[in-house]
């Protein structure tokens, strides 16, 4: 079933368009990876889905309902969570408070969800009283993902989850992403680390210069010579 559909979206800052008629489809339970060179508009795509940028053209629908141009605090209520690439935790607040803020819009008792997030990231349970600003890069990334997961989102948008992490931590974060996906959360992942991102993707999209270049299953893109030569480093 198609969950999130981005159709022919054109978006930009002031005069210059960053994305031109980009189309991405996410089916339920899927990991969709978006790869491409720097400046291809990958992060812009996520910001547009989440309402931080307003598209000039095109439609974004969640379960066939329009969410185009809604404010972020409305979109999050529709069941989409977003983890930005940088400054993605409340660094002066404790881990527990960060997760509580993730559940800000929930009116019900979310203590069970909190336990589930702690089960997913046990290290956060041990340190729940510590300030997020004092954590290592990998742990911060877990706090950021945990915050986004507090809402039980239908779709999770991850912007460069491996950026800035030491190589030994990168595989750990991708492992966690697989675990999160296994709980049924669909996601769009934007990544520089194209090989890893495509390995776990059900479907992958290649963007360049703000346009769709290729899309196929993750495996097929990994096997594609052109993708290998241009984006996977040989």
């Amino acid at each position, binding site marked *: 079933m198609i969950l999130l559909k981005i159709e022919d979206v054109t978006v930009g800052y002031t005069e210059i368009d960053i994305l031109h008629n980009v189309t991405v489809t996410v089916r339920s339970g899927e990991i969709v990876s978006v790869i491409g060179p720097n400046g291809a508009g990958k992060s812009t795509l996520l910001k547009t889905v*989440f309402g*931080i940028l307003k598209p000039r053209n095109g439609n974004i629908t969640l379960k066939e309902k329009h969410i185009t141009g809604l*404010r*972020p*605090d409305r979109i*999050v*209520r529709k069941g989409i969570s*977003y983890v*930005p690439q940088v*400054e*993605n*935790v*409340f*660094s*002066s*607040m404790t881990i527990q*408070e960060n997760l*509580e*803020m*993730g559940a*800000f*819009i929930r009116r019900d008792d979310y203590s069970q969800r909190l336990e589930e997030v702690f089960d997913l990231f046990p290290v956060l349970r041990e340190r729940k009283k510590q300030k997020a600003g004092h954590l290592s890069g990998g742990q911060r990334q877990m706090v950021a993902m945990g*915050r986004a997961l507090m*809402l039980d989102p239908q779709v999770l948008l991850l912007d460069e989850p491996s950026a800035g992490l030491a190589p030994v931590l990168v595989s750990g974060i991708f492992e966690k992403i697989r675990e999160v996906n296994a709980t049924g959360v669909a996601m769009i992942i934007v990544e520089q680390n194209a090989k890893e991102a495509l390995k776990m993707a059900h479907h992958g999209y290649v963007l360049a210069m703000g346009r769709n270049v290729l899309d196929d299953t993750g495996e097929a893109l990994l096997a594609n010579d052109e993708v290998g030569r241009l984006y996977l480093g040989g």
Partner: protein
Amino acid sequence: MAELIVYGIVLGGIIALGAIGLSLVYGIIGFANFAHGEFMTAGAYLALFMVTGVFSWIGIPDNTFGILSFGWRMVFAFPFSMAGVAFLAIFFDRVLYRKLRAKNSGPVMFAMSSLGTSFIIRMIIIIVWGSDYLFYRPGLMRPALEVPLGIKIRPDQIVILFIVFLLVGLLHVFLQDTKMGKAMRATADNMELALISGINTERIIIWTWGIGGALAAAGGILYGIDVQLHARMGWHFLIPLFAATILGSIGNIYGALVGGFAIGIAQQVSTAFLLPTYKLAVAFVIMILILLIRPQGIFGKG
């Protein structure tokens, strides 16, 4: 000397109430509100209007509580005035600062607009009440109590300190333990992430102005009870407020509390060596020294 320190703590508590609001507004909206001192003046005069006007008209008795210089009229006027200035602060945000935010105006635009706001409030007060010194209870003898160490303290001042700590305690509980308070800290920490988490940051901004305005009003009234009322009182508080805010690291409300006490004590103790007219200069010198030596303040990260 001990007596000057005690007076400094009283003055410091009043400065802290203003500085906390200034710091909150700076932390969340990110601009230096030059009209914050006028919120203190407005609070003091609104209370005066209630005590000598409205409450005398509706017939609330004018007697005072024992050795204190105020009575029931002030008890009712105090929260009323806090609420009134909270609405005044929110009003200015809605008609002025919100529009500047929508236009992505720079910090200078905000600073100049708030300077203009401060003139407007001050001039309205001068037009209505004139620029004389006023008292909530003119002609009242205000005897001091003798406490150990040869300190003379007026009963009013003990109540003032009690109210300062009560208000700061309430703010602490609000920020640490309530959902809205935590959302306020989250917004001050990272506004974009707060928005992403579904926090309606415009609502947080309204709360911030309301709380900042109410605390400033409380500070103004307490100064009016302790000393006197004057149309320029808030304007003269502006430098101590900024000094306290910067000393305690901008945006950090606990820092503003500590900074307020430090500035208040420094100002009062300085009168042992300098003419009292130099009190403001003391605050100013401290502010310049912090900006030169440790611009991030005592609680800021290096």
